[in-house]
């Protein structure tokens, strides 16, 4: 590789967008060429200056409300009209009762076998995602902003009937940034907020109903990765837009905090 080619490839090299063969050629060239090393340094210097979250512009507070009110409104009266046109014949009422009873019995029977555990899990997953999205939108990410696990943990005492495990994994790139109370699956839960680079991870914790440990199971929907596990008497639901691999790493840390 000559200098011209190295110049052409240097940005893709920095951005990890180059195939392996070209990456090796660029590396070899850089080892021997002082001029191109200088170029690499200059690119890195620019990159370092831009890699600062403050360079971005923050969304003005009023914009969310403005957009929500500008979007076309869902009009319930249209639905009600169509509903009144639907006339129920008198003889169908007892049939409907019978059908309802049959279906209920059927579901109860199936559920004994645990057939619906999975769909139950994915409905919690949906709630977990919604709660995550709300927390990002509503400027209500924390009740207690703190990077100190010894501040966050006592804060939950007296607010919840349980004391959730709280750990900071800043040295592994998952920084604890705070905690808040949330409401999920019909109960009050602890929400811990972690930051992975520019991304937020919400970790929801509540006591398990059974003492059974559950290995981490992942769900993925609408660009969010959700991971669920149960460990030492607690249910854990982690949700974020970070990639599945990072989520796994996060769960592994939670499972072995020491």
């Amino acid at each position: 590789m000559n200098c011209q080619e190295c110049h052409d490839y240097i940005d893709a090299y920095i951005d990890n967008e180059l195939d392996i063969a070209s990456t090796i050629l660029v590396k070899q060239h850089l080892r021997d060429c002082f001029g191109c090393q200088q170029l690499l340094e200059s690119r890195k210097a620019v990159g370092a200056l831009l890699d600062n979250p403050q360079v971005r512009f923050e969304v003005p507070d009023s914009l969310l409300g403005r957009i929500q009110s500008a979007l076309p409104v869902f009009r319930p009266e249209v639905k009600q009209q169509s509903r009144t046109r639907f006339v129920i014949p008198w003889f169908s009422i007892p049939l409907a009762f019978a059908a309802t009873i049959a279906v209920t019995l059927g579901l109860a029977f199936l559920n004994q076998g645990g057939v619906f555990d999975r769909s139950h899990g994915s409905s919690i997953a949906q709630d977990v995602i919604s709660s995550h999205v709300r927390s990002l939108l509503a400027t209500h990410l924390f009740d207690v902003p703190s990077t100190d696990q010894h501040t966050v943990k006592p804060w939950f005492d007296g607010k919840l009937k349980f004391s959730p495990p709280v750990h900071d994994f800043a040295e592994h790139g998952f920084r604890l940034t705070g905690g808040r109370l949330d409401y999920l699956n019909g109960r009050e839960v602890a929400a811990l907020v972690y930051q992975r680079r520019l991304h937020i991870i919400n970790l929801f914790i509540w006591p398990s109903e059974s003492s059974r440990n559950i290995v981490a199971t992942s769900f993925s929907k609408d660009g969010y990765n959700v991971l669920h596990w149960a460990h030492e008497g607690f249910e854990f639901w982690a949700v974020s837009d970070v990639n599945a691999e990072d989520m796994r790493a996060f769960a592994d840390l939670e499972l072995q905090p020491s």
Partner: protein
Amino acid sequence: MNDEQTRTRFETLLLPLMKDAYNLSRWLMKNQEDAEDMVQESYLRAYRFFGTFHEGSNCRAWFLRIVRNTCYTALGDHDLKQKQVLLDAEADEIEDTSPLPPVTLSKKATVEAVREAIAALPVDFREVVVLRELEGLSYKEISEVSGIPLGTVMSRLARARRQLYLLLSDRKQHDQL
């Protein structure tokens, strides 16, 4: 899917992208008022075209393309002329590899100085820098958002970074005087 479900789904997918949409719009329009208008217009357009969004495809790239095109439409003639000049200049790649002045960038360059340097870039260069460095998009995603080929993404990014380096090192020399 009924109206209410569509609206809920739209909000779940797209409202979390507001920070990305605003940041891109703010950098393209260069002022807060226009940036907000463009984000609002983009949401309305996205809502209208939501039917064309395919489940499982890249929602962020899909929406940022709408934001980008909305901003470009508003920028209109003035910037299109500027763009033409740039396309001519783009053919000239040899000058680009001339040695860089041997200065080191101050690690403490203020956020203001960095913002000024990005703002000084022509819109096409600014766009790729913002999408890559501030939004963290891959080259493929940048190509999707801006509608320019991968090779052009790469060469614009190279030229933009070089210009940023020159702008920021000039600034440092001025500061020292």
